[in-house]
């Protein structure tokens, strides 16, 4: 059978960077093919070439056995190739139907196009089991449903080959499973799917065949049933990787952070946090699991002093904080509370600053970076160089713009900055979001190391696997409340998943019996 897509000898350079080096691969018709690799391995560049966003320097693209020139996404769409991007390209205030016809309105008057689209949408929903209310506003849909709209949009344009770029980045485990069911249905109906990801679980669960990319090259291809996550991880990174974190039992000490009845109500009267209480002891890692958007971000903001709670009390290293005695992030730092924010690009660093400048963010008024009211340039540079050495940030260039580093290296730099001053309390939001496997291993080890040195660590993550492997105790958040606490030893993905969806914690006696 002719493959749906065949690439041969694709090369692509950006200036001096050789991003894709002689890649050849074939994607079978009616199958799900995975392309896996670390951030920066060239996966997205390769797919952008296939989708016509970039032009290859050399090489050939064949669709259904015919050589085609991909000059722009229009050519790709004409060939029946559609792409679902990592970040959704939807207009929030439009309905599903209006989003669907965007760019394919079918005439100067919308009514005709909309009616035709409604009929087509009904057909697609029947054929592929993708049901969405056509008149719902996109803003009112859940993230999983929004992704479904993205897929429908691509199918609506007549795509027979679907490229998904890191589709699960924003989904819960349950939503991800749902997505895979959709992909399986699509496959049954003869649609070809290409799945780009760096998550091994997804490759194993969803694909028929997998290509592994490293540094711009295909280093392996395997039928999925013949490989294992361990082998894929090793191929991606180029060395043995420990997927299971190896850590000793925790020895909790004194309580360093205590939150009591924290409640946060925003301007519109929405209860973002509802009577949240937790304790954080020296020498333990507490994990907060939950679907993104259930109050974890707000909790981190309050604990780090960025936002004040509407009511409730907080005690950090002996200092009482409430509405009458607020505490800003600078003072929190003085209490030796460090915070690795969830979104490093938006909060944790300044993209336009040099790495050395980012490495003192929040500590700019402290010696040795600041002496006699002046910043000490050499000291700041030397500090950054030390951090880079200790946390293996690459390239080791304190003078380089922060935005020029890869996600993993940015995260290591932020983590290094926050850990450098040996905090007593460490808050970490999404420690490994957008970070590749090699760096995940390193970051997890560093977090455990600081726990072993007596630091009280709070980890907030939407990656259940990460919480399970890092935390000593797990709290689950849903709709601004803490649904319950599970000791790490007794937690499993199913129970936590149910709690994340709002189910009450099983009764203690029952949990005891497990």
């Amino acid at each position, binding site marked *: 059978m002719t493959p749906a897509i065949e690439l041969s000898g694709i090369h692509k350079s950006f200036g001096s960077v050789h991003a894709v080096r002689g890649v050849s691969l074939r994607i079978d018709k009616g199958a799900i093919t995975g392309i896996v690799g670390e951030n920066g391995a060239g996966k997205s560049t390769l797919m952008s070439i296939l989708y016509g966003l970039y032009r290859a320097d050399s090489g050939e693209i064949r669709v259904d056995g015919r050589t085609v020139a991909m000059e722009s996404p229009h050519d790709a769409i004409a060939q029946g190739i559609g792409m679902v991007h990592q970040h959704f390209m939807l207009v929030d205030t439009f309905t599903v139907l209006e989003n669907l016809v965007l760019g394919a309105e079918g005439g100067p008057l919308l009514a005709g196009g909309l009616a035709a689209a409604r009929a087509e949408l009904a057909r697609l929903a029947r054929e592929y089991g993708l049901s969405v209310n056509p008149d719902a506003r996109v803003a009112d849909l859940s993230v999983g449903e929004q992704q479904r709209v993205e897929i429908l949009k691509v199918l609506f344009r007549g795509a027979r080959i679907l490229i998904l770029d890191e589709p699960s980045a924003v989904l819960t485990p349950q939503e991800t499973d749902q997505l895979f069911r959709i992909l399986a249905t699509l496959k049954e109906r003869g649609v070809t799917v290409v799945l780009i990801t760096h998550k091994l679980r997804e490759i194993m669960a969803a694909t028929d065949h997998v290509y592994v990319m490293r540094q711009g090259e295909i280093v392996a291809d395997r039928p999925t049933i013949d490989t294992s996550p361990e082998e894929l991880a090793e191929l991606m990174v180029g060395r043995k990787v420990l997927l299971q974190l190896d850590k000793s039992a925790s020895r909790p000490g004194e309580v360093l952070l205590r939150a009591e009845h924290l409640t946060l109500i925003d301007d519109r009267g929405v209860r973002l946090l509802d009577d949240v209480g937790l304790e954080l002891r020296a020498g333990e890692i507490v994990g907060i699991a939950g679907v993104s958007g259930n109050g974890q971000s707000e909790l981190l903001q309050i604990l780090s002093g960025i936002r004040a709670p509407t009511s409730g009390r907080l005690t950090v290293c002996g200092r009482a904080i409430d509405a009458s005695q607020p505490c800003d*992030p600078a003072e929190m730092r003085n209490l030796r509370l460090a915070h690795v924010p969830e979104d490093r690009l938006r909060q944790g660093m300044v993209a336009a600053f040099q790495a050395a400048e980012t490495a003192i963010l929040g500590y700019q008024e402290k010696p040795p970076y600041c002496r006699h009211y002046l910043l000490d340039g050499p000291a700041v540079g030397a500090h950054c160089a030390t951090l880079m050495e200790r946390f293996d940030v690459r390239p080791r260039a304190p003078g380089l713009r922060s935005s020029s580093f890869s996600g993993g290296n940015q995260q290591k730099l932020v983590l290094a900055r926050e850990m450098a001053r040996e905090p007593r309390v460490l808050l970490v939001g999404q420690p490994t979001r957008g970070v590749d496997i090699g760096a995940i291993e390193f970051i997890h080890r560093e977090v455990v190391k600081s726990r072993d040195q007596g630091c009280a660590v709070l980890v907030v993550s939407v990656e259940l696997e990460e919480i399970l492997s890092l935390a000593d105790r797990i709290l689950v958040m849903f709709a601004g409340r803490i649904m319950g606490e599970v000791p790490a030893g007794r937690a499993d993905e199913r129970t936590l998943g149910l709690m994340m969806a709002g189910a009450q914690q099983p009764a203690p006696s029952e949990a005891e019996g497990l």
Partner: protein
Amino acid sequence: MSAPRRPLPAWAEIAVLPVLNIALAFVTVGIIVRIIGVDLFHALRLLVVGAIGSSESIGYTLYYATNFTFTGLAVAVAFHAGLFNIGGEGQAYIGGLGCGLAILALDRFLPAWLMIPLAIVAAALFGAAWAAVPAWLQAWRGSHIVITTIMFNFVASALMVYLMVNVLIAPGSMTPQSRNFTASGKLPSVHDVLAAVGIPVAPSALNLSIVLAVVCCIAVWVFLWHTPWGYALRTMGHNPEAAIYAGTNLKHMTMLAMCLSGALAGFVGVNELMGVHHRIVLDFPAGYGFAGIAVALMGRSHPLGIVLAALLFGALQQGGAELAFEIPTITREMVVVIQGLIILFSGALMHLPRPWLQWLMALFASPRSRGEVPAQRAEGS
């Protein structure tokens, strides 16, 4: 689509791009001058000679450049904080008022060495105060600073007319001017100072404000890039969320940035009133506040770039005046058109030649040239 856009190296960004912008502006000027029937090279020669042909013209060029430096720095400081201060005009006006009031009140009692610093401080305080109101409105009430600073220009202008006509007008005078400052309220002119040390130069409006301008450039540079507050200010400008995360109070930082900006703009009053007019007059800011926006844009908001841009604007102001004087078909308005074109090309159309330059650089770049971009950048997943 096919050619990837690589960022330009810093030297091209700072040096080549602005020169290209100016060159484009002059080509356009050339076409217009041609249309009205003037020999371009003759006009250009007059312009250059008028700006830097004699010690007198150099003096005037530097005097104008001093004003442009103050307002350019004012816009730049606010700009680094992510604030667009369009109120330089009003802040210069009120800064001048502060300077003048201090002198009118004290020049009969204080010696020059005390009067001059006091008047400079008064100019800074008044300029800062005039900027502080929009800053406060932005920080606490959320009123957009672009709107409020523009409105404050009009308020300043109306206030000054009222004060000059009704309050500060010299007794018996027909024109709205204050009384003349006494000797201790006058800033020495550069030709007097140079003559005192035996260097004769032609008299011009250039006064010791230029020293203040140089000090301000250095101070702004040190403040922005070598103090923790400048660091926090730039953090706010680039990424307010990161600034909050770092513990910076954005309200206070907005106040600080705008007050500094207003103080710098206020120094135009020092140059004009204490340096040249030696009394309070109307309309002395004469568009310097607005031109400061172009100066800051062209100078890439860096003190060194601002000095260069201010010199260019000063030269155009002075050379343009000569040009209008020598060639009758080139009117004052024509000179304004020329300045406007330069502002247009180095401001609004600043990025126009960038793709051409990138294309040229890619053409000449050797394959092994050191990439500024590390390997990880190639993929943005």
